[in-house]
């Protein structure tokens, strides 16, 4: 039994959720190999070889694999699949795009967003926006899994010494083409890797208040900035700030929810945080039912005070 974990990485390095996927693969009990697929992958294979618990790094370096397009990456996974019992990737945008495609090509029912490993065939996954946990057992010969990164402590970035091997990339007819990206630029940590997150909701009233009131606190705490769906839909902040069922699933040490009422869909994305703080002027807001520390206050006075106190 050997697992293959598809790593998420970019120019800044291997993403923390990828190491959580390695941790999930390690729980299966067999050997863990990782795949570095991309164009001009540079130092990434060397970094991948150091991840604790990894015994082999497969490198697929080809122009067709740039920008994590699902079609060529899924074709590559099908070519590699005969050697593996399990194929995993973190449930990142790339993992969610690629692995269900690869699974279908293998005639396998993908198991999405697993939050627990029971045994090599049996997995726990949240359903109904995390309001229930399903334990499912797969009868497929091979398992294809996406991993809820917030549910697995990432494997250590150092400590391994894996062999590195280059693999051949199958030629595929190009039916999809990358045109461009509009990526948010930020010096702050990424939401899915941050230890502290400060999130704003509709109560922030506009994007300027995010800049004026939330960002200075985030900077003092070394925190990432998140948002509720309402704040994203209203255009206060870009889509990649969204925490929730269909946005990012996070579990930081500290989550500060400001002006967020606490819709089920938002709670689904953050209720596994270690400590939750809610600041809201509506004392009946549902967010207080899951907050460790609640402060009923107008955020426009509370946030400047908080910034001063830190």
């Amino acid at each position, binding site marked *: 039994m050997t697992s293959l974990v598809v790593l998420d990485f970019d120019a800044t390095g291997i993403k923390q959720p990828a190491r959580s996927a390695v941790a999930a693969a390690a729980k299966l009990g067999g050997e863990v190999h990782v795949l570095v697929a991309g164009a001009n992958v540079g130092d990434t294979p060397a970094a991948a070889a150091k991840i604790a618990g990894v015994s082999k790094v497969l490198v697929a370096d080809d122009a067709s694999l740039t*920008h994590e*397009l*699902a*079609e060529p990456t899924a074709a590559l996974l099908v070519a590699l699949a005969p050697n593996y019992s399990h194929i995993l990737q973190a449930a*990142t*945008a*790339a993992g969610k*795009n690629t692995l*269900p*495609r690869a699974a*279908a*090509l293998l005639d*396998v*029912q*993908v198991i*999405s*967003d697993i939050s627990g490993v*029971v045994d090599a065939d049996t997995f726990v996954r*949240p*359903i*109904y*926006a995390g*309001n*229930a*946990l*399903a*334990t*499912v*057992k*797969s*009868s497929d010969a091979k398992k294809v899994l996406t991993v809820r990164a917030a549910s697995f402590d990432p494997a250590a970035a150092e400590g391994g010494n894996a062999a590195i091997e280059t693999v051949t990339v199958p030629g595929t007819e190009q*039916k*999809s*083409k*990358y*045109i*461009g*990206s*509009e*990526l948010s630029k930020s010096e702050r940590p990424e939401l*899915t890797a941050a230890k502290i997150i400060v999130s704003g909701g509709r109560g922030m009233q506009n994007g300027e208040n995010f800049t004026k009131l939330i960002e200075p606190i985030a900077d003092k705490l070394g925190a990432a900035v998140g948002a509720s769906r309402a704040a994203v*839909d209203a255009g206060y902040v870009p*889509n*990649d700030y969204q925490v929730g*069922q269909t946005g*990012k699933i996070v579990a930081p*040490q*500290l989550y500060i929810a400001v002006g967020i009422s606490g819709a089920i869909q938002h709670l689904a994305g953050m*209720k596994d945080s270690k*400590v939750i*703080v809610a600041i809201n002027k509506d004392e009946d807001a549902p967010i207080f039912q*899951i907050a*460790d*520390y*609640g402060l*009923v*206050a107008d955020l426009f006075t509370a946030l400047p*005070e908080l910034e001063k*106190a*830190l």
Partner: protein
Amino acid sequence: MKVVIAVKRVVDYNVKVRVKSDKSGVETAGVKMSMNPFDEIAVEEAVRLKEKGIATEIVAVSVGVNQAQETIRTALAMGADRGVLVETDVAVEPLAVAKLLKAIAEKEGAELIVLGKQAIDDDFNATGQALAALLGWPQGTFASKVEIGGGNATVTREVDGGLETVELKLPAVVTADLRLNEPRYASLPNIMKARKKPIDILKPDDLGVDVTPRLTVVSVSEPPARKAGIKVPDVATLVEKLRNEAKVI
């Protein structure tokens, strides 16, 4: 261009679901059911393509129990032209749904298939990707903008770092994310008109698809409950608690 849309009947998103006491699943008896919200967005996108003169016909497909006809009727009232129900009492998994949709898309000669990115009941986020794989078509998942022209679909996608645009050679599969559009409410005259639109009813066998589940549900349980903590009177107390009690700052 013929467009196929897929719509799923799910527990309404406002319902607080309850896990059954025997842990076999979630209580759905006597619970309000509606169209999966992401599928509503997919329907809306197809209807807008028809209003722009790009789509010629919209076929709304659902897989599920007989009552899923109501979900198809909703799509017809929003502007789809006709419906197909693949009727089965089996809880069909995304891979099997994709196989059924593939058979229908081929029969219909569809050039574009639009689906919601995930259903809010099983949260798989897989059917569109599986369908594109089986058809050998390109996929534009988590779409926040779709433009059709020159034999291509240009799709802006919501990704972890922001937005990404890809160009797909038609035929293609697109899955709708939250911000693709705001679905319309069906007007009363359109609801009346939808009653006269045809719905074909097929069985999985008619399409030669085996829908036997690959996954067995061992159990369904409540997630660990999180207790409400304490209210703090002011910012100073909050900071003191975070420093000395929770020790997180």
